[in-house]
Structures are given as structure tokens and as C-alpha cells.
């Protein structure tokens, strides 16, 4: 019973600390000093650095979607709407979720290990001792960079996914190119684009803040850094999938 009590207390404390860190990180956006060089450096690392994995993931997701859809649709003689299904699946769901999961795998872990290493080597304490607020210098730039770059990466992923779907449709299913693109573009509505951009915006908060929180609460030397890194990826991925359900539910309720 005592162990359960301790676990519950630790969990509540962790949630409280996470929320406080998140509030501080967002509040820092409106308070000086602003570390713009750090923001740009993080945008380059998080955005440009994630481009190869996002492009690859997007392309092959679109390609396999087209393959699966066409197989199912061919039983109804409706392979002409393959582009439409690929487009809707990618823009509404798979683009934002898979891109965010890939970015979480690369960046939540990267952030957690970098900040965790700084924590165990007392660099964070040194920063505080030198009069710098680590939440301003380290957390807010990473949050801003992820919030700006993740929606852009999602758009790129959606586009390359459509190209992947087109490659499959054209070379393997032998669909007419204009048929693929026309059905895809006609299917797209404001609601889909809105959904597809709101999700990565929310997921960006999860990716950046979970990585920062896990990094800044690291203890226990290099072993602790490894533990924080793993926990950051797992927690960010689970939170992305769980919040995806609720965001979809809310958006559908609001738009309908």
C-alpha cells in the first residue's frame, strides 16, 4: 500500500512538474531575453535534420497505402479512386501521426539525451549559476523550433506520400496519372487540411516538452541519461497516439 502511495505521489508530482515546465516554456516566448540563434539552430537540427526520415517515411507510406487500397478497391472495380483514399488517409491521419512519431523518435530522444547529459555533468547548474534560466535558453527555443517545423515536415510528408502513392498507382496498378491526381485533389476539403495541420501543431508540444522534461529530470549518471532517452521516446509516442484520438474527436465534433 505504501509503495502504491509513493508511486501515485511521484506520478502526480511528475505531472505537476511537466505542466509547470510547459507553462514556463510558453510564457518565456513573450519575455526577454530571446535566444533567436538557438531557435534557428534548433530549427535547422529538428526541421532540416529530420527531412530525410520524414521524406522516406512519407513516400513509402503513400506507396503501400496505394497498394493496399487498390487491392481492396479492385474487388469493387473502383481503383480509380485510389488517389482519393491515399490523399485523405495521409492528410487526415497518417501524415501527421507518422511524421510526429518519426520526429519524436529522432528529436525527443535527442533532446532528452542532450539535456540529460548537461544535467548529470552539472552544465545546467552552471548555467543557473551564471544567471541564465535553462527554461529560456534550452526549453523555449526547442519548443518554438518544433512548433514551426513539425507542421512543415507534415506537409512535406503528405506531399511525398502522394508521390509514393502515385508511383505505385502508375507503375504497378497502371492507373492514369490524371485520374489519380484529379480524384485526390477533388477529395480534399478544408476540414481535412485543418485537421492535418492542427495535429502536428499539438504534437510538436508533446515532442519538444516531453524531451525537455525527461532531460531536465535526469539523474543517475550515464545510466540515467539512457533511461531518460528511452522514456522520452516511449512517452512522446504514446501521448501522440492518445491525443490523436481526442483531437480527431474534438475536431469532428466542432466541424460537424
Amino acid at each position, binding site marked *: 500500500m505504501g509503495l502504491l502511495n509513493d508511486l501515485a505521489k511521484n506520478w502526480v508530482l511528475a505531472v505537476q512538474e511537466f505542466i509547470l515546465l510547459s507553462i514556463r516554456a510558453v510564457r518565456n516566448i513573450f519575455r526577454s531575453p530571446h535566444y533567436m540563434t538557438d531557435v534557428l539552430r534548433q530549427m535547422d537540427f529538428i526541421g532540416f535534420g529530420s527531412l530525410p526520415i520524414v521524406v522516406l517515411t512519407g513516400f513509402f507510406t503513400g506507396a503501400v497505402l496505394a497498394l493496399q487500397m487498390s487491392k481492396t478497391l479492385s474487388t469493387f472495380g473502383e481503383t480509380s479512386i485510389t488517389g482519393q483514399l491515399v490523399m485523405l488517409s495521409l492528410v487526415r491521419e497518417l501524415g501527421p501521426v507518422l511524421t510526429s512519431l518519426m520526429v519524436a523518435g529522432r528529436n525527443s530522444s535527442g533532446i532528452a539525451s542532450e539535456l540529460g*547529459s548537461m544535467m548529470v555533468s552539472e*552544465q545546467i*547548474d*552552471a548555467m*543557473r*549559476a*551564471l*544567471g*541564465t*534560466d535553462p527554461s529560456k535558453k534550452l526549453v523555449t527555443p526547442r519548443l518554438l523550433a518544433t512548433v514551426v517545423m513539425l507542421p512543415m515536415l507534415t506537409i512535406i510528408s503528405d506531399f511525398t506520400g502522394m508521390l509514393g502513392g502515385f508511383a505505385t498507382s502508375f507503375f504497378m496498378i497502371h492507373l492514369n496519372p490524371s485520374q489519380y491526381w484529379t480524384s485526390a485533389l477533388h477529395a480534399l476539403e478544408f476540414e481535412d487540411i485543418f485537421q492535418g495541420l492542427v495535429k502536428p501543431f499539438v504534437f510538436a508540444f508533446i515532442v519538444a516538452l516531453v524531451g525537455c522534461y525527461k532531460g531536465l529530470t535526469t539523474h543517475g549518471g550515464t545510466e540515467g541519461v539512457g533511461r531518460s532517452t528511452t522514456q522520452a521516446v516511449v512517452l512522446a509516442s504514446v501521448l501522440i497516439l492518445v491525443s490523436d484520438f481526442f483531437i480527431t474527436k474534438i475536431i469532428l465534433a466542432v466541424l460537424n
Partner: protein
Amino acid sequence: MATPATQATQDTIVEFDRVSLGFGGKPVLEEISFELKHGETKIILGATGSGKSVLLKLALGLLQPDSGRIWVLGQEISSLHEEELFPIRQRFGMVFQEGALFDSLTVGENVSYALERLGELGAEEAERRVREALRFVELEQAIEKFPSELSGGMRRRVAIARALVSEPEIMLYDSPTAGLDPITANRIVTLIIKRRDVSRVSSLLVTHRLQDAFELASFYYDPGQEKLLPVGTNGSRRETHTRFLVLREGEIAFHGRLEELVAARDPYLKKFLA
């Protein structure tokens, strides 16, 4: 009766008043009380895990005590928020145990980082002070190098330069010679003595190397000869303003001068000094 904010006298730089702190229900420091006077160097000795580094972090406001009060330069810091502590920390220089240099910055950038908070300094003046601080630790030639390119002793010396560059009123040294070879350790002790005697900076120094502690208490820096001399040189007894504080399992086991420490009859102290 004096208000808490003015309890410390002008001469007292840091004061701990019955300070206790524990982690996960385990006490680390219990009812610690002492004062650091202006120009004084307090050497904190103790076995590993006796709370020496925690004490330094409390003085800097990096940790908050569970109970008791801490005054720094006449201001009570134990109940201040992080942002209220930044102006007070600007008056400190701290050398961390492993240096704690920022990996992504060069030596020059690491040292000048401490000057960023002094916004009024121009770029030329900042560079002059960075070079001067690096010259003090004899590492001016390493200004463009990254910490990963330096040895452990060099990293520690850069950390000293970073702590000194903003000319702080209080220096905190956390095991500055731990894990270093005798020559490098001696060089660092010389730098600390030089700083103490040239600038009269108040210091808290944590160490478990007795030879360093004794050297600090029994040598002074002579600017004329540019070297360390024993306090008894020329028949005159120099005051090094150095006191010892020995911690035993989170409590103060001894507080006083070197002579008193050496003459102490306490079995723990005898064992510790053996």
C-alpha cells in the same frame, strides 16, 4: 530584534542558520550553522557523501533548504524564487567538480558566457577580460579550443577562469583538484591562493585532499616574488584568513583554525587527519 533580511552583519558574506536538507527522506545536512566573513576562505572537509557539495549549492541558491535560513550579502535567499536569485548569483563565481564547461562552446565562449549577464560591457572590453582571465590560468593559447580537446586539469582551469572573469565577490570551489595529478592540483591550489591574496575574495572551498587544504592555510602569495611562501617566512606570521569546517554525516564535526584542527582530540577528526 533584527529583521531576517538584515540579520547578517556588513562583515558577514554568507550565513547558514540551522539549515537542514534531505533527499528522499534521508537527511543530508542537519542543523548547519556557520558564517563566512569578508575576505575569509572556509575550507569544507568531509568524507564522500557528507553533504559538502550540497552545502555549496545551497549557498548559491541552486537548492532550497527544508528548514533553516541562508543569508547571502545581507539578503535571505532561502525563500527566493529562481528569477529573484539571478542578481544574487551574479555576485558569485562557482567552479564545479568536473568543470561543467558547455560542450558546444569554445573555451573563449565558455569564459565570455559569464560576461553576457554584464550587458554594459563592450565586445572589446569583454574580449580583453576573457583573455586576461585565461592568462591568469595560463591557458590563453587554448581560447579557440573546445572542452573535449582539453585535459581534465585544463578544463578545471578554464572553469576557474570562467568563475573569475566577472570579478565576483564570493568564490565557491567544489573539489577543484579532485582526480588531478599532483602537479596540476598544485597549480590550481596556487591559483586559488593567488586569487585569495590578490583580490581578497571570500571563498567556500570543498575538498577531500588534506594536502591542498593545509597548503591553502599555511601559504600566502607574495606578489613581489610572484610565488607562494610559507606563512612563517621572515619571522612574521601572515594571516591567511582560512578556517576549516569538517562535516560528519551532515553535521558539523569541527569549525576553526588549522592549528585547532591539528590539535583536536576528537577520534573522528584524528582518524580523518591520519
